[in-house]
């Protein structure tokens, strides 16, 4: 991908700046001797829907976790909406961000996890309203109206008073999607959100995501093993291998005419199984 030449000190809000909503610049992440992200350059345009595919251990989940501030990179800079995420400017250079800075930039990012991570001690409704009330400062009634709307959208408007332990995996994941949407992030991360589901429950979650991808303005970064789904929703498919982007392009190209031999053998393995 051509490196975007936009100035790191570009305007803080992306509205006047058509630049990428996310930009990784030479980002490296190592776990001990293992290099999971290797001088990664990577961009996400506003409103772009990206499917990230690749063998396990290729670093695709780590991209999401670095963006969600769950994993701190060893080197490089990540920009969200023009602002450095893990660093903040001080006296003309970038220093390590403090918690206040992380919170300020992180509010643009939302995430749906493989294992849902719903709060088991809260009802479905409270799972969705807790952060809007206590993080965004919304009123309870405003937050509940929004939550009911979102829960309706994911087909769970009748489950508001249940606890997560009373729901199926697919229902849990749909609540988790509503919970993340309630924070209205600019970028939403989906980390293998159907991998922990029984096969018959995968469809209901993917259908929600298909609708969401069609209707929303947010950028979506979707790490997935569901190739048909990736082909359906993605503007761009990124094939990850050994911590780097090995190949990327529109779904039609990646799935029909991949050029990189690694992409070819990966797709052959997952599509033929």
């Amino acid at each position, binding site marked *: 991908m051509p490196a975007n030449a936009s100035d790191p000190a570009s305007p803080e809000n992306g509205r006047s700046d058509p630049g990428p909503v996310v930009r990784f610049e030479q980002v490296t992440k190592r776990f001990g001797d293992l290099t999971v992200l290797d001088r990664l350059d990577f961009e996400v345009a506003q409103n772009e829907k990206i499917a990230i595919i690749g063998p396990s251990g290729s670093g695709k989940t780590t991209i999401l976790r670095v963006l969600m501030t769950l994993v701190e990179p060893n080197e490089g800079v990540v920009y969200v909406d023009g602002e450095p995420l893990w660093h903040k400017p001080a006296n003309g250079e970038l220093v390590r961000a403090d918690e206040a800075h992380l919170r300020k930039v992180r509010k643009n990012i939302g995430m749906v996890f493989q294992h849902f991570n719903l709060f088991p001690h809260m009802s479905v409704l409270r799972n969705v309203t807790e952060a809007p009330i206590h*993080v965004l400062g919304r009123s309870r009634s405003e937050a509940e109206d929004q939550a009911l709307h979102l829960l309706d959208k994911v087909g769970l408007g009748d489950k508001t008073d249940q606890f997560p*332990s009373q729901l199926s995996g697919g229902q849990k994941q749909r609540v988790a999607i509503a919970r993340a949407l309630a924070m209205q992030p600019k970028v939403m991360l989906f980390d293998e959100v159907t991998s922990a589901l029984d096969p018959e429950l995968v469809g209901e979650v993917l259908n929600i995501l298909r609708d969401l991808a069609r209707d929303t303005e947010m950028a979506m970064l979707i790490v997935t093993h569901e190739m048909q789904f990736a082909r359906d929703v993605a503007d761009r498919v990124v094939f990850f291998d050994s911590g780097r982007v090995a190949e990327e392009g529109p779904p039609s190209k990646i799935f029909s005419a991949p050029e990189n031999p690694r992409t070819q053998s990966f797709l052959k393995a997952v599509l033929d199984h």
Partner: protein
Amino acid sequence: MGIDLLPTLLRGAGITIQLTLASAALALVVALIAGLGRLSPWKPIRILAGTYVEVFRGTSVLVQLFWFYFALPLFGIRLDAFAAGVLALGLNVGAYGAETVRGSILSVPRGQIEAGIALNFSAAQRMRRIVLPQAFVMMLPPFGNNLIELLKATALVSLITIPEMTFEGYSLQMTTGRTNEIFLWLLLLYFAVAYPLTLGVRAIERRVSAFLRA
């Protein structure tokens, strides 16, 4: 079994219950502070909390009691017997409780904290709204055990002249010599206090863990 012994023993039981509740309240507060302190991002606080826990777990509660009552006055700090008793019992049980608090907090799955970060809760909000409510459910059964242990340990403060139930029993034995009756009453009375405490803790457990059975 002589009913005539009861009024004196019941007066002692009242003091035993007061000691138990006051020490339990102190222990709970200290356990939460020290348990959280051991997980603090600041090293001096971790060391302080860790030192407290190790010192009070690693020494005898009886010796601690004597320190508060007999030794501190030598340094100019004079506590009345009840205060010394509550302090020794509360700080001792609190040290065990701190480990329960720490362990329970650590056993809340990492994914819960990550979800809290993803929703942009502050670190304090994550602890208060997400981690502690789930950890509390796990703390309760060991806390119930600690409470019963505490009740029984209150008998030790008879040694610093607090007229609690065991103290009254000893006194009656000296004056009346009716050893069998007195100690049988003491068994029954301790159980009569302990069992409702057990039931009470269980009721709280049921309430706060309702979401797990839902």
